[in-house]
């Protein structure tokens, strides 16, 4: 964290979800904060330094907040910053929704801290045929008002100017106490807002249209068709067939033919001792296995996946999908809102576990965390599995059916036995927007960099541990122990290393399977069992850390133990069923 920042004036970006706080944060600090087109993209507090007309300041980006009476966890996170950390407040508003947003402006003004109002997405307001008299708004609120289009940078100079004037003001350092909730108070704020808006907003003569695209996406029939199309083209064809198939084959082949032999000969020249050399270029060596998995297998898949995801996130499709799937999700104890973390989980379960914060009840957050850890495969793993099974479509279909059934059944059971009130669903749906290529590429790059910072050390540590294990003989012993449950699942002892990798990360485990299967070590039945078990496995160490942080260590331990036992038992049951039915895949 920035230690120098604490001495500088603090500027807090606050406002409803999906109004562009993170874009403004990016513009002021030059740092990238994830930007998407759905409410709840930012669930954590981000800080970064900025120079405002030469004055150093610390900018704080907060999750969306509808009022000072929070309902969800991420709103609470935002409110805590406003309450506990005295700072200058920038209330970012979607200019189209002035009337709905002003009550929060008035509430923020009551904190006694200096406030600047930013009317963002002003271009969308103009295109609706509306306008706002910013000078008169500023007069009636008694606060500076700036109109911006943050994505293009319009109005940002003016904002910077206002902020540099603001930070010279006296700041009250008392923590802010939220007045007790009363509907009357809230209504009073609304009445004041309505009066202000009546005097400053020039309304559109025509009402906004429900576009044909909107209608197609949210009507059940065409909606599910579109969903299937996105899954087929985006996931199966682009990430699976092109990424995990063509690209991985190409990169993997090139790595094996050119890179690995070069490493091996370099090692032979530089390291005279065989025992040390195997750490780098042995069967489980850092260079020949760890980096190969990371760069030749996982990299191409993850990049393509994040690319597809960024486009989907920025289009505004996710809240519409939430609407479409709400009634189905109710059956597993979740509201449509949970669609967003579940879909994000297909990208990276670690990120998704954090996004679970946006769900309103503890019950929903528990169910979503368990389902994410147990049944949602992350992009790297799913990509490897699709590549692995590309020549065995029947196994692929069976895998998908089994995982979906486990998702549905465990969800239904959790919904039945988890105490707490049933979920309710409400979400603000932003307009569909054309994704900006710049943001899509930037987001993909940032996520990829984050991902690699996460996995490369783990792959290296795994190689080192296995190397140590081999030297001490512990590795052989673990493989022998693992062979017992593997035998129960009808899998050969040669699959043990893959499962051992799976304990570090399940995508690493899947990559291990890729090697074993390429060497022809697994039959169709064995492939099915091993991909199912590895999908159910604990996602990774990073995700475990987030689960502990969000749900507490007791819950996290219970979830982990359950998942481990459940994964192995499912494998054994599947093996028994396949053997009993006498099927050969």
């Amino acid at each position, binding site marked *: 964290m920035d230690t120098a920042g604490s001495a500088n004036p603090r500027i807090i970006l606050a406002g409803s979800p999906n109004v562009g706080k993170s874009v403004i944060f990016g513009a002021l600090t030059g740092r990238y904060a994830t930007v998407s087109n759905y409410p709840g993209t930012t669930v954590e507090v981000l800080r970064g330094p900025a120079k405002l007309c030469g004055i150093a300041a610390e900018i704080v980006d907060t999750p969306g907040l*509808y*009022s000072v*009476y929070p*309902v969800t966890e991420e709103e609470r996170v935002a409110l805590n910053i406003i309450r506990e950390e005295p700072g200058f407040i920038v209330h970012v508003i*979607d200019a*189209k*929704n002035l*009337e*709905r947003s002003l*009550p*929060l402006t008035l509430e923020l003004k009551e904190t006694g801290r200096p406030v600047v109002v930013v009317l963002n997405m002003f271009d969308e307001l103009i295109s*609706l045929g*509306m306008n706002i008299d910013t000078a008169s708004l500023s007069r009636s609120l008694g606060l500076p008002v700036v109109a911006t289009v943050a994505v293009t940078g319009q109005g940002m100079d003016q904002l910077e100017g206002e902020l540099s004037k603001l930070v010279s003001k006296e700041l009250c350092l008392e923590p802010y106490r939220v007045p007790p*909730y009363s*509907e009357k108070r*809230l*209504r009073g704020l*609304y009445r004041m807002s*309505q009066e202000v808006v009546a005097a400053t907003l020039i309304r559109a003569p025509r*009402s*906004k249209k*429900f576009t044909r695209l*909107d*209608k197609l996406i*949210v*009507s*059940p029939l065409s909606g599910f068709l579109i969903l299937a199309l996105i899954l087929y083209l985006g996931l199966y064809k682009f990430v699976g067939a092109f990424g995990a198939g063509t690209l991985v084959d190409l990169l993997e082949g090139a790595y094996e033919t050119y890179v690995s032999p070069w490493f091996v000969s370099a090692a032979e020249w530089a390291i005279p001792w065989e025992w040390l050399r195997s750490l780098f270029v042995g069967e489980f060596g850092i260079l020949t296995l760890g980096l190969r998995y990371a760069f030749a297998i996982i990299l191409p898949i993850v990049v393509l996946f994040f690319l597809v995801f960024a486009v989907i996130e920025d289009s505004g499709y996710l*809240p*519409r999908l*939430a*609407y*479409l799937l*709400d*009634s189905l999700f*109710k059956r597993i104890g979740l*509201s*449509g809102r949970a669609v967003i973390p579940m879909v994000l989980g297909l990208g990276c379960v670690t990120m998704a576990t954090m996004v679970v914060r946006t769900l*309103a009840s503890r019950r929903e957050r528990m169910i979503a965390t368990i389902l994410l850890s147990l049944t949602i495969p992350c992009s790297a793993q799913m990509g490897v599995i699709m590549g692995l099974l590309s020549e065995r479509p029947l196994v692929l279909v069976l895998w998908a059916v089994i995982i979906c059934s486990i998702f549905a059944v465990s969800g239904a059971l959790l919904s039945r036995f988890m105490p707490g*009130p049933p979920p*309710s*669903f*409400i*979400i*603000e*749906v*932003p*307009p569909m927007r054309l994704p900006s290529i710049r943001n899509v590429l930037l987001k993909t790059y940032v996520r990829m960099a984050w991902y690699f910072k996460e996995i490369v050390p783990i792959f290296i540590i795994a190689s080192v541990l296995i190397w140590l294990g081999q030297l001490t003989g512990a590795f052989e012993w673990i493989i022998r122990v693992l062979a017992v449950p593997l035998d129960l699942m009808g899998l050969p002892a040669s699959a043990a290393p893959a499962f051992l990798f799976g304990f570090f990360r399940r995508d690493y485990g899947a990559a291990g399977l890729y090697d074993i299967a390429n060497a022809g070590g697994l039959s169709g039945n064995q492939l099915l069992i091993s991909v199912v078990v590895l999908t159910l496995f604990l996602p990774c160490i990073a995700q475990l850390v987030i689960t502990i942080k969000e749900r507490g260590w007791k819950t996290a331990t219970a979830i982990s133990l359950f998942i481990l036992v459940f994964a192995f038992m499912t494998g054994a049951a599947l093996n028994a069923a396949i053997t009993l039915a006498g099927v050969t895949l």
Partner: protein
Amino acid sequence: MQITEQMEEILEALWVAREEKNTDCLKLAWLREMPDTRMLKELIDERIVERCGAEEIKMTTRGAQLASDAVRRHRLAERLLTDVLAVRKEMIHETACQFEHHLHRGIDQNVCTLLGHPKTCPHGRPIPPGRCCEEGVRIAPQAVSPVSHLKPGQTGQVAYLSTTDPKRAQLMLSMGIVPGTHVKLLSNFPSLFFELGESQFAVDKEMAKEIYVRIESA
């Protein structure tokens, strides 16, 4: 026997006291409308109330039924005055007191149906349900009804929120679903999709049942 207006007021007072104190035996001093000795005797003779201790009385089954009807008429009258006739808040109680006596059996059902079988009065107290609520009678066209009863394309103005969970009311209010705002239903399957001001919202049917709107167009 003829139930006089004065008797009705006492019955209502008994009902309110029972709601507030959460007990069947009620001290006469608790009642906002106290019966005199003659009236008390008449009520006991008619088996509307019975004694249950010194200075304490309790409603009989018959009495409770009569009181429920009276309270229902009063609170429906309040709803009608607030939501449809837009009477000023300070005048509502008094006007309702005069109005309720005209809502005798049959008329109260029509008013209840017209208002979309509301569950609470404007002050948040429960309206005892009538037979029409249980049967869910819907005589077209209603003046006020839950958003979930709108047809796609229909518009309305939010009249009030009727939710038992304060958290939900808080959430809806802070998202901008406030009395007076205009909504347009865009789609009602699989859940509800509506436009409110310049934004769009998706909600489930349960929540949509708690948002009552004054219907504006067909």
